[in-house]
């Protein structure tokens, strides 16, 4: 991947963690992800809604111009509109609800935990975001990544299974590459995890 995503280290990558209400497309980050619909539930902020009003005039029965403080009501689906063949329509339906293998909703197991969890990788923009979510989910501390030492100093190491079936340490590859190859996550615990740091 050409895009460099900084994670850990000195660069806090504040942009990635910044809460935004703007429409996708209003910043570079958003543009880089696949244009298939995001599953997040971001609502249009008032300023942005106005912008969209001026783009498509009031004559349009455009639900997006509706109430600014509540979710825009779903537009009434018109059968067979826009006029594209079902094959093509299904192919972008598919892109939206990605299969697990492509790395959207993935299972997360933690050593010792009785049951697994699931996370939607699409919701996160970077490793710190994901790690923070995992820390919250399992009530633990994973700590910071460093290229040389992995998650040294932590009792836990996040690992993932990639498309080839290999178990990799989370954090080595650029974020975009990670989410496209990650099939499932496993949080290793205890001595096994500590051992990784000294490899």
């Amino acid at each position, binding site marked *: 991947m050409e895009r460099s995503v900084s994670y850990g280290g000195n660069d806090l990558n504040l942009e990635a963690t910044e809460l935004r209400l703007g*429409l996708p497309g209003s910043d570079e980050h958003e543009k880089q992800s696949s244009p298939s*619909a995001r599953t997040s539930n971001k609502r249009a902020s008032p300023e942005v809604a106005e912008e969209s009003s001026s783009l*498509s005039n009031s004559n349009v029965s455009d639900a997006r111009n509706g109430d600014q403080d509540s979710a825009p009501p779903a537009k009434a689906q018109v059968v067979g509109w826009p006029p594209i063949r079902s*094959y093509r329509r299904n192919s972008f339906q598919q892109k939206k609800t990605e299969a697990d293998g492509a790395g959207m909703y993935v299972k997360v197991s933690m050593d010792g935990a009785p049951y697994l969890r699931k996370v939607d990788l699409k919701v996160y923009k970077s490793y710190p975001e994901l790690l923070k979510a995992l820390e919250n989910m399992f009530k633990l501390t994973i700590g910071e990544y460093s290229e040389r030492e992995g998650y040294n100093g932590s009792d836990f190491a996040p690992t993932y299974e990639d498309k080839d079936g290999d178990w990799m340490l989370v954090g080595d590859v650029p974020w975009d590459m990670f989410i496209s190859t990650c099939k499932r996550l496993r949080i290793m615990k205890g001595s096994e995890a500590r051992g990784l740091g000294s490899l």
Partner: protein
Amino acid sequence: MDFSLPTEPMNHKRKNPDPSPDSDESTTQLSSPFPDEVLERVLSLLNSRKDRNSVSLVCKDWYDAERWSRTHVFIGNCYSVSPEILTRRFPNIRSVTLKGKPRFSDFDLVPPKWGAYVHSWLLVFATKYHFLEELRLKRMTVSDENLKLLALSFPNFKALSLLSCDGFSTDGLASITTHCKNLTELDIQENDIDDKSGKWLSCFPENFMSLEVLNFANLNSDVNFEALERLVSRCKSLKVLKVNENMTLEQLHRLLVLAPHLRELGTGSLLQELTPRQHSELKSAFNNCKNLNMLSGFYEVTSIFLPVLYPACTSLTFLNLSYAALRSDELSNLLVHCPLLQRLWVLDSVEDEGLEAVGSNCPLLEELRVFPASDPFEDEILHGVTEAGFLAVSYGCKKLHYVLYFCRQMTNAAVATIVQNCPDFTHFRLCIMNPRQPDYQTNEPMDEAFGAVVKTCTKLRRLAVSGLLTDLTFEYIGKYANNLETLSVAFAGSSDRGMECVLKGCPKLRKLEIRDCPFGNAALLSSFRKYESMRSLWMSGCKVTMDGCRLLAQEMPRLNVEVIRECGNDGFQADKLYVYRSVAGPRKDAPSFVLTL
């Protein structure tokens, strides 16, 4: 139908090859001075349908010579003629193209099991066209049994092409690959197919070598890669290979090394990490493909992969990126390497900026199609393309004559400028995705836009309109679109007058498809004779009633007037109307929900 019918009864017997000087026929009627074989020989060089139709109308001799020498027939509406009539007139057909359902069936407007069964055709062909070589079907219902019958009935069968068909599974394909020893073409385009497995590919016999075209890009099941590899290495004449999404880059590389002479390539999924060695190997493999003029596929593509293609792009004339959600910069970088591009299909993810790059890099562009990358009804995202992108292309691509453009906004002024820049449009299909949307700058209807199109583009043959439109648009169309053959209308018009104007004008109109417009019986019945000069009329979600349709059926007995009844229908409105001319009479295979009036 696309061949003309004579008014006199057909001569079943072949004329005497040596007309004697005593023959009365040569004195009483215009007859050809050539013996029939010579005339037939000459006519066999004629390929154009239009020319052949004209020839057949000259005189009886020419009609006969034409029918004996015709080897390819195109039937635009399978219900316009019967297989019996066809085989009686043309005894020597080797290649058939058949189209079935109305085009709006592609958009789910026609219920399943409507018809267009290839079955009755195949039964007749099996006895009358033993030497059939090619069959191309569009919007037909085909079953696995049909495909088996096809595979077993025609020893010389060479080419099968299926587009927008339904009713069959990959088992049917297996029949074809197993039995058709002389197959050169297997072209499975977008179909509603029951994709059970990829075993069909392994059914090609090990000594089978004749394949020239293989397209399974729209099949999702995995095929046995080793079998494909062996097939590709055996088939030295392979020109077109379009693989499906499941092919990896590694596999693609191996195939390219085996078939560097490919003219058209459809890639698989391009979402893999490449080692530097793999990267350069793949680049080198593409570099060796000197004959490549079409590229497609590109499912799940990443920026890292695209430069690998650059060496292969220099001779590209057709690039189909319509399954690849590229960004504007990715497209731009790619197009720099495609100076000879004539046809480009993209998704609107490239946005106006990407289209600017098209305008700057592709001076030879003749055709552009921009499809929506995501469902505009489900996404809150306001991405896509606008009038700016289309304008940019029109400034840079003076040879542009075919456009299909899905956009979220448009203006009258932009369209007027676009057609000034490119007056040679033959196909202008504009889809402003929000129904009834006006010019976003002036808030006016888009009438003047389409007025400009029909006034300026005198060669226009196909037009699709959208946006907020009054009857004025249709006045313009009726008055100026003298070469228009196909017109598609949705959510447009103010009254019957709109449709009346089109029917009174447009002398060359063949196909008219209308949905959700305020046109009623008055419009339908205003020029009912016109429908006999057309292939078909479709009207759905309009204001015609059953009584209006019955009147039409009464006035025009040689038309088939069919109403598709949906449940919940009150029996008064004719919600879906399909009218077409036919010499075969009313359908004998109509389902219960199709009423022939």
